[in-house]
């Protein structure tokens, strides 16, 4: 099930909230576990077995790692490795099997048949979560969870199940045991959820239609500016889609008493690639930093190793996004940029005009999305050629003008929403106004703002059969 569906909003969520809050304290975890499994089973029931299997494996591995951790380091290590093998094995098998088969076929000229397994939803997220669980126990940062239900709940907790954020066990370890009803947390959750819903349904889906249109046109008929408009549309779509989804997850978490970390923090206002990745999909970045980059030695073992580590991390970060070579390339592209920034470029641009810094960042990000969105590398190359006027296409045409003026309102809204402008406006401008105005904004403006997002999102959901969810592939 996806959050941005009528079924979730008006069927699953109210029922779940109701059952959860009327059930006695002791039962709350069980209730949440059951609804989470139901949530997962909705649409793809078979793989629920896989998730339960994964939870069982991690439960036992956790206990044993802890048992040996102090007494017998080697044994603990063996169990840890076994846990990692299982998790990575599951992920590889279900997500990368065909990719590996195809790659081997191409390299060795063999003719193995691909398996055509469908990707279990959320597998990239929950396997990463459970790996962090085992590793953290091994490192002594957390104690293993003795209660299997609580652990199963950690793995399957529905708000973050499908598209993250990747929540480390230690973040919610305490909340898994004990959650206090906290009204302000609950209302925060609702607000964050509504914002996320709006981002996904009103912004991402609508700009996605534009990208869809442009992508479906034959490349020979695209004008240069249409190509740019298209990739801008895609970058806005993917940001609002993914961050909207993360917001909904965080919001839902709060409604049920969990505090998940924030996953996006206005990435498009960054001034460098390094900063961008501190603001984009934060939970994934920190995961790779803590569990891959630093264990490899990070930047402490000399320049050469540092660069090697960067490339390893970025290669697999890319691969994590999808089982295709273009994603690897996309990751390495960022690896190269970050290496260049580390090598001194960052110090140079920091002294320059901020306008230039933003322009630089947005330019390299737009190019990265071209790599990202075209699984077929040659198609991506062709698209990039059009963008840079190397394909003899027109600079602009009627099509571009049409797209531009029919989407201008949406684009302006998107641009404003990609920055903290509204937030700043409220806290610097409005707060200086007279009391009546402030009170009007706070008591009428804000609630009606949320109400309108709800109304319009519902209207768009009812109207549209168009509700694809981009991050299902990962």
């Amino acid at each position, binding site marked *: 099930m996806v959050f941005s569906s009528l079924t979730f909003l008006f069927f699953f969520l109210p029922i779940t909230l109701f059952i959860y809050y009327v059930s006695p304290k002791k039962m709350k975890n069980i209730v949440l576990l059951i609804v989470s499994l139901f949530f997962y089973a909705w649409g793809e029931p078979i793989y629920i077995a896989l998730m339960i299997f994964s939870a069982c494996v991690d439960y036992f591995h956790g206990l044993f790692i802890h048992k040996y951790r102090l007494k017998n380091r080697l044994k603990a290590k063996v169990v840890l490795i076994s846990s990692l093998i299982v998790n990575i094995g599951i992920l590889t098998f279900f997500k990368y099997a065909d990719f590996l088969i195809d790659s081997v076929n191409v390299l060795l000229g063999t003719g193995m048949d691909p398996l055509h397994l469908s990707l279990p939803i959320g597998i990239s997220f929950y396997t990463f979560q459970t790996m962090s669980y085992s590793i953290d126990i091994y490192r002594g940062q957390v104690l293993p969870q003795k209660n299997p239900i609580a652990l199963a709940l950690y793995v399957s907790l529905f708000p973050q199940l499908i598209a993250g954020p990747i929540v480390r066990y230690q973040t919610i370890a305490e909340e898994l045991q004990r959650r206090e009803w906290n009204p302000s947390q609950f209302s925060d959750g609702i607000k964050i959820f509504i914002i996320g819903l709006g981002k996904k349904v009103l912004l991402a889906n609508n700009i996605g239609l534009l990208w869809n249109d442009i992508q479906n046109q034959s490349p020979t008929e695209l004008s240069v500016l249409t190509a740019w408009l298209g990739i801008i549309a895609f970058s806005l779509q993917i940001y609002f889609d993914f961050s909207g989804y993360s917001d909904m997850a965080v919001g839902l978490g709060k409604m049920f008493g969990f505090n998940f970390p924030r996953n996006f923090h206005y990435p498009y206002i960054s001034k460098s690639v390094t900063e961008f990745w501190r603001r984009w999909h934060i939970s994934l970045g920190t995961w790779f930093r803590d569990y891959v980059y630093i264990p490899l030695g990070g930047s402490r073992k000399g320049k050469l190793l540092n660069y090697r580590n960067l490339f390893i991390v970025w290669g697999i970060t890319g691969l994590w996004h999808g089982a295709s070579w273009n994603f690897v390339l996309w990751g390495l592209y960022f690896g190269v940029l970050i290496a260049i920034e580390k090598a001194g470029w960052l110090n140079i641009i920091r002294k320059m005009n901020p306008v230039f810094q933003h322009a630089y960042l947005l330019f390299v990000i737009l190019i990265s999305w071209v790599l990202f969105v075209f699984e077929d590398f040659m198609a991506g190359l062709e698209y990039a050629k059009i963008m840079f006027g190397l394909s003899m296409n027109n600079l602009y045409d009627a099509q571009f003008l049409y797209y531009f003026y*029919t989407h201008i309102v949406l684009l302006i809204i998107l641009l404003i929403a990609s920055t903290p402008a509204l937030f700043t406006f409220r806290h610097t401008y409005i707060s200086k106004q007279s009391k009546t105005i402030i009170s009007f904004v706070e008591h009428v403006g804000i609630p009606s703002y949320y109400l309108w997002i*709800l109304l319009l999102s519902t209207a768009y959901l*009812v109207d549209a059969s168009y509700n694809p969810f981009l991050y299902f592939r990962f």
Partner: protein
Amino acid sequence: MSVVNKVICGIFLCFIFGIGVSNLVSKNMNFSEIENRVLSQMPQFTFDSFISGEFTDDFEVYLSDQFVWKKFWVGLNTDVERVTLKKENNGVFFGKEDYLLEGYDKPGEQLQKNINNILYFLNKAENITSYLMVAPTSVGIYNENLPLYAPSFSQKETLTYLEDQFNESIIYLDVYGVLLREKEEQIYFRTDHHWTSIGAYYAYEAAAKKMGFRPYRKDDFSVETVSNDFYGTLYSKASAYRIEPDEIEIFLPKFNLTYEVEYEVNDQSSNTLYEWDNLNKKDQYAVFLNGNHSLVKIKSSLHNGRKLVVIKDSYAHAFIPFLANHFEEIHVIDLRYYHLNIYEYLDTNEIDEVLFLYNLANFSQDKNMIWLKQ
């Protein structure tokens, strides 16, 4: 918790619980007139259908089909789209003067296939006199009503290409010019993808000479408005609220002629070319010849020995009432539903004239002309 937060919580909870419960208690509908489609019903739960994911898919469709106050939501959506300068929905443009116009895409390979299918026919049916009429759709004529810069491929270009391809192997009935000339009149519906009676009349007038008869003049008919609340297919497709409905006019002959209409499939027969009951249904265009049938035979009281087969799409429905005044028999065949051997049919019924009548959008895309290749 501050007052504002309480209010927001209240709004949210009332919203999801309220609408959720309303959905439960509201009655299920079978058919949506406005969307012109059957609505799905609550799927039956079985273990197998749940495991395969069919149940959940069906349930989601069911919920969005039967959602409460759907008209309100869709209306709200349309209004917001208008406010944000969106000019189309589902490939239908909101044109000027309340015109809904369906864009015409550059034709692909299907156009050539269809041309070849007809060439195949011409080759095989040697002794048959064949006519071809391909009517532009409204966007081809009212191009200037499209929103600024809206993309639509030139229909004139395709029509010229068509004519060239046949290279006089068929009697080509050009109607583009005459429709363009008469565009001041309401020759197309604003909310439907068909032409109107008057549009069909001009086409008939233009085709008459090449088809070898003298057309009746407009005064020979009494024009009657039979509906003023017609919302057509484009209206449904674009969910275009706040647009005025169309009128349907019908040309009834003042001269004396009777018809016998036989709908082959269910052996219905009738003595009129119009099926008035359909004016009370959603698809009022079906008033002409009772909508889509695979085979319709029309016998007129005329005795000139001329027999014609019309191979067509629904543009023919408004056109045939004029044509019927010049032929003893007209057999109307729709290749979408009629898959039998056409050559045998011509043979057994001793027919030696065939008219192909399509609108250009269909002619560029329809995949059923392959049934000519018997």
